[in-house]
């Protein structure tokens, strides 16, 4: 009995020692020399491995950041400026602060505004549907409603609204990693600066059809009338290919474009007060009147 116990203990001890030795030698032989800063950088990363930075994951980003001469081309959209400041501190680089961004869905073709003209019966994926045909509404540009973007979002920031058939962005969760932008075959989702206190104006449509065609397919489509561009006093709006676009860098959030848009394609979000269209229109009219008077006077002189 005691023999068995002793033998067992002895064999296991020897076995353990031999294996430990083997492991030690293998670890020694195959050790990969790595910059210790990679580990340090990886530690401060968010660890979501979302690929929003353009690298395969947080470790890949850390490796690239350590190798790069500066941080100009490497930015973690999820961690934002805080994380980048820490990374910069570790690596001794300077970092330029970037305005925080958020995903914006540029389609407001709800079920009422954009009636379905046929029924899709294939695999519920926007990619498959987009490869097959123009879509189940008259608008060949708008949201297909199968939720590829919501499936691509790792942060649970996107969800499909069953009432409108459109995706909804939860701004508190959105990290602007850009996964949804890549997933959308119709290129509807855009990353835009969050804006002061989250306030921003954008054209919620990507339809490039001529006005009447767009309007027929969807009541709230941008018809490219250019009224917004004419009204804007900050030259923030450009109309190209029957579609308006607001440059967030120039927009002063005066909401005049939103008030004059005949189809309601321009959306303003997170403003403290709801838009009083009549008041804004009156303000524009007064300004125009004054401008006209000024022009008249100038002509007189």
């Amino acid at each position, binding site marked *: 009995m005691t023999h068995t116990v002793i033998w067992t203990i002895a064999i296991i001890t020897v076995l353990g020692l031999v294996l430990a030795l083997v492991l030690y030698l293998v670890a020694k032989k195959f050790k990969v020399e790595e910059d210790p800063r990679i580990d340090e950088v990886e530690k401060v990363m968010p660890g979501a491995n979302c690929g929003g930075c353009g690298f395969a994951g947080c470790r890949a980003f850390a490796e690239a950041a350590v190798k790069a001469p500066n941080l100009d081309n490497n930015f973690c959209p999820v961690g934002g400026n805080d994380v980048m400041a820490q990374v910069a501190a570790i690596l001794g680089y300077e970092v330029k602060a970037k305005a925080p961004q958020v995903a914006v869905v540029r389609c407001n073709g709800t079920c009422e505004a954009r009636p379905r003209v046929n029924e899709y*019966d294939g695999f519920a994926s926007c*990619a498959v549907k987009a490869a097959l045909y*123009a879509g189940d509404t008259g608008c060949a540009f708008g949201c297909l409603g199968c939720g590829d973007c919501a499936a691509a979002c790792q942060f649970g920031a996107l969800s499909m609204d069953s009432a409108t058939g459109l995706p909804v962005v939860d701004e508190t969760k959105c990290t602007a990693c850009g996964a949804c932008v890549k997933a959308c075959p119709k290129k509807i989702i855009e990353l835009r600066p969050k804006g002061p206190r989250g306030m921003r104006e954008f054209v919620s449509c990507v339809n490039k059809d001529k006005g009447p065609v767009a309007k027929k397919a969807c009541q709230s489509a941008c018809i490219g009338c250019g009224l917004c561009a004419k009204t804007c006093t900050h030259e923030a709006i450009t109309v190209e290919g029957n579609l308006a676009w607001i440059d967030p860098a120039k927009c002063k959030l005066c909401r005049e474009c939103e008030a004059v848009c005949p189809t309601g394609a321009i959306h303003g979000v997170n403003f403290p007060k709801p838009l009083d269209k009549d008041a804004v229109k009156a303000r524009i009219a007064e300004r125009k009147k004054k401008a006209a008077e000024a022009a008249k006077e100038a002509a007189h002189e």
Partner: protein
Amino acid sequence: MSKHTFAIGGVHPHDNKLARDSRIEILPPAPTMYISVAQHLGAPAQPVVAVGDKVKVGQVLAGPGGFVSAYVHSPVSGTVKSIGPRPDLAGRPVPHIEIAVEGDEWMEDIDTSDNLVTDLPADNAAIIEKIHKAGVVGLGGATFPTHIKLSPPPGSKCERIIINGCECEPYLTSDYRVLLEKGEQVAVGAALIAQVMGNVPCTIAIEENKPEAIAHMREVVAKLGYKNIEVMELKMRYPQGSEKQLIDAVMHRQVRSGGLPISVGAVVQNVGTALAVYEAVQKNKPLIDNTITVTGKCFPKQVNLQVRVGTPFSYIIDSLGGMPEDAVKVISGGPMMGKAIANLDASTLKGTSALLFLTEKETRRAPESACIRCGKCADACPMGLEPFLLQKLSRIADTEALEANAAQDCIECGCCLYSCPAHIPLLDIIRTGKGLALGAIRARAAAAKAAAEAAKSSVIPSEAKESKK
């Protein structure tokens, strides 16, 4: 002799050839025709007419827009009303030429008589030029320009022409009717193609469910005295009419992955294409009409129509009594590979083979359930792929594994989805995976080409230096 068929997979859907006994009728052109400039594989054709021009039947409307491209001719006489984008059957805007029909005035050099011209011209280059100028494209589905297919790359040798009369898609009967009613023309067309490819033997392959066509074609070939043409009876099995499967069935040779049929010495042409070649070469008639089966269990009439290219679907349907009440899906082509029509105002193309009406019960997909790993998809796949695996890889977009498992070889025949007892939309998903795999292969090829060119350009200066010395 045992009947031939291909080696791997395949399914046996009910053939439902409802319109097999209906003679080909001629449908007069619609008052306004819309002719697409993208009716073929490759670059869209470039319009050569202007708004307001008067055109005749057979006049060139658009010229080729690239090397792989084809002429488009006017199927009617009248005035060009507009040239611009118009939604195709999938609702996507495609440039169309709109013609208001006035009378039926044909180009003078077209032989509109019915007499059979059996004397084959001797000059092969002239034949190919005629085929090119007539805008003939493959009518089996892919609409690849025929003149390119008949000009094989140097170094490759054609050993056999296969005229594809399988028509393995259920419901379709247009090729069958063409064989029965225009068998002589098809045989002459086949002889022309065989001559162009270097007097090679030619096989007209027909499935066993069309015994009348087999007997008729044997008779015709014997009567016309073509020694190099044989008619082969094949087993009934889908997708026999697929190019690679047909070559396997007839010649027992398998085209390698990514290879062309010519690499195993085969050139496959559809029955309709052979007819178009005959008309182009012997009659000077460009490809302006084709035979379309209009059918469906819910459709009151079962007809085979000779329709001018560019006729709106809605016009065809209205002239046959309108949409049936219980039809929910209209398909351009057969039920296995045809395209569901989203826009009935779209018009027919050169490659349109059928207009099929299906009811809710026949076509609505059952909800997807869990894969039970029965392997029926793998048994059905004629390319020997494993759809259950490919769909999993496609869902996670694993390009490398997709390529390793030959997703790029998928011919999109639909056998996997057809046979899946769990109703998993296998093909829908695998198509995206195939796209990924093909994209990776093309990117690699492009990179290799660029590298080779870079190497070449770096070699040339050094050579130049040497020559200076």
